[in-house]
């Protein structure tokens, strides 16, 4: 379980998180929604310790990761996988080397075993036989799927997705959504997805949390969120420019 307690984070005078509280339950997909530039990626980076809060705690399985040193944090990070917005594949390595990277770093496996896992993970994301390609040779959707294969290579318990469908066409968006649903189910993962793609949110989320002005203003099932009378949520779901969310 991941618990975010009273998180505060500012960059200069710009307060991004203002006392945020959220509990992310095990074995299900929680989607965090909110407007662009509203602090969703900052929130995700706090969950995995890439950023430290100005105040507040981040508990992963009861351990406050904001107080850990580098070595302890690395141990906790082995529980995580993360799919970055642009996949963040290492462009000096082949696809196979990218997927094998966490295995070579942390698992004491023979080369043949590593190759077997790489083949298996690439097949799981629907990209068999691309091991020798370079990331630059792949399309945006393929890169994201390779990123997912790398994220689940070490069989993590928790996978974080930073806007997994942004920039993809509708068909590829659906393919990635299906992949997230299937991966979550097959590997019994706890998934945290950041998105503002409405089609995807209700397709993949067991729980949805709305981030607005640095706090979570609603957290519930997709049905509860859709039935919400909160004007901010109504405006966000309707995609309207009229309402409390100001367009800047």
């Amino acid at each position, binding site marked *: 379980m991941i618990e975010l307690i009273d998180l505060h984070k500012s960059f200069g005078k710009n307060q991004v998180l203002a006392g945020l509280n959220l509990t992310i339950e095990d074995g299900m997909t929680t989607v965090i929604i909110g407007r662009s530039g509203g602090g969703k990626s900052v929130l995700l980076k706090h969950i995995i310790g*890439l950023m430290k809060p100005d105040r507040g705690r981040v508990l992963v399985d009861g351990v406050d990761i904001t107080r850990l040193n580098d070595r302890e944090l690395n141990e906790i990070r082995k529980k995580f996988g993360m799919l970055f917005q642009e996949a*963040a594949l290492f462009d000096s390595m082949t696809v196979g080397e990218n997927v094998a990277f966490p295995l070579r770093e942390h698992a004491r496996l023979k080369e043949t075993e590593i190759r077997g896992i790489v083949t298996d993970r690439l097949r799981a994301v629907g990209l068999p036989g691309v091991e020798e390609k370079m990331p630059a040779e792949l399309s945006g959707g393929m890169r994201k799927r390779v990123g997912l294969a790398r994220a689940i290579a070490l069989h993590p318990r928790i996978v974080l997705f930073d806007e997994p469908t942004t920039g993809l066409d509708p068909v590829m968006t659906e393919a990635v959504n299906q992949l997230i649903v299937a991966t979550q189910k097959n590997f019994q993962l706890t998934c945290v997805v950041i998105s503002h793609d409405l089609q995807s949110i209700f397709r993949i989320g067991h729980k949805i949390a709305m981030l607005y002005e640095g706090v979570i203003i609603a957290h519930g099932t997709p049905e509860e969120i859709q039935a919400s009378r909160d004007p901010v949520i109504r405006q966000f779901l309707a995609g309207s420019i009229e309402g409390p969310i100001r367009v800047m």
Partner: protein
Amino acid sequence: MGGLTSLIDALGRAVLRSVEEMGRIILLFFSVMGWMFRPPLRLRNIFKQMEFVGVRSIFVVVLTGMFTGMVMALQGYHGFRMFSAESMVGATVALGMTRELGPVLTSLMVTARAGSAMAAEIGTMKVTEQVDALYVMAANPVQYLIVPRIIAGVVMVPFLTIVSDFVGILGGYFVGVELLNINAGVFMKNITKLVELSDIFNGLIKAACFGLILSLVGCYKGFNTTGGAEGVGRATTEAVVLASITILISDYFLTALMF
């Protein structure tokens, strides 16, 4: 009066920024030292960087070393001829190359070739979240990216300096003996008489220091890149300028200490 105040204000800010940046580079150096001796030792990465910094710089270093030695011999010959001391050309070239021009020119060439590439490569990784990906996969970027580059800089720049010294003296010999007809025996004898082992050795220590500076500055600038492609370009330029200036300034102090 207002103009003067704002000038002092701007000057003060620039000084503070420079001091802060120097502090950050020193902190990165300590972090590199901390990670250098922790397992795993990434030999593959280290050799890859040594090949990039060292082997691939040989051509440019040979070219600059050779022509520097040649021009020194040419200039020296015309100067020494006024005192009928042409025989000193060889020793002057050898001393100039081993003590000063070998390490400095080699380092400046490697800064332009490899220091800039370090900043650009790590900078691109930073802005495309590849550095964050390393953190997420519990691989420390300082250990994975920076330590191999620092080792490559410190080890390979002295080797390149040896090459530069050698071809510089060879170039001087060619111009002095073959073109300007200085007696070969006298040319060589003065070199062996006046150049001591400590001249070569101190030059190589300088080269190792410069190798550290150029790789540390290149990695620092890359690691602190923000702002997309434009930011990568800015980091690359700043890395070359800052490393070159630091090499030239530190050269004076190292020379004052050593010779």
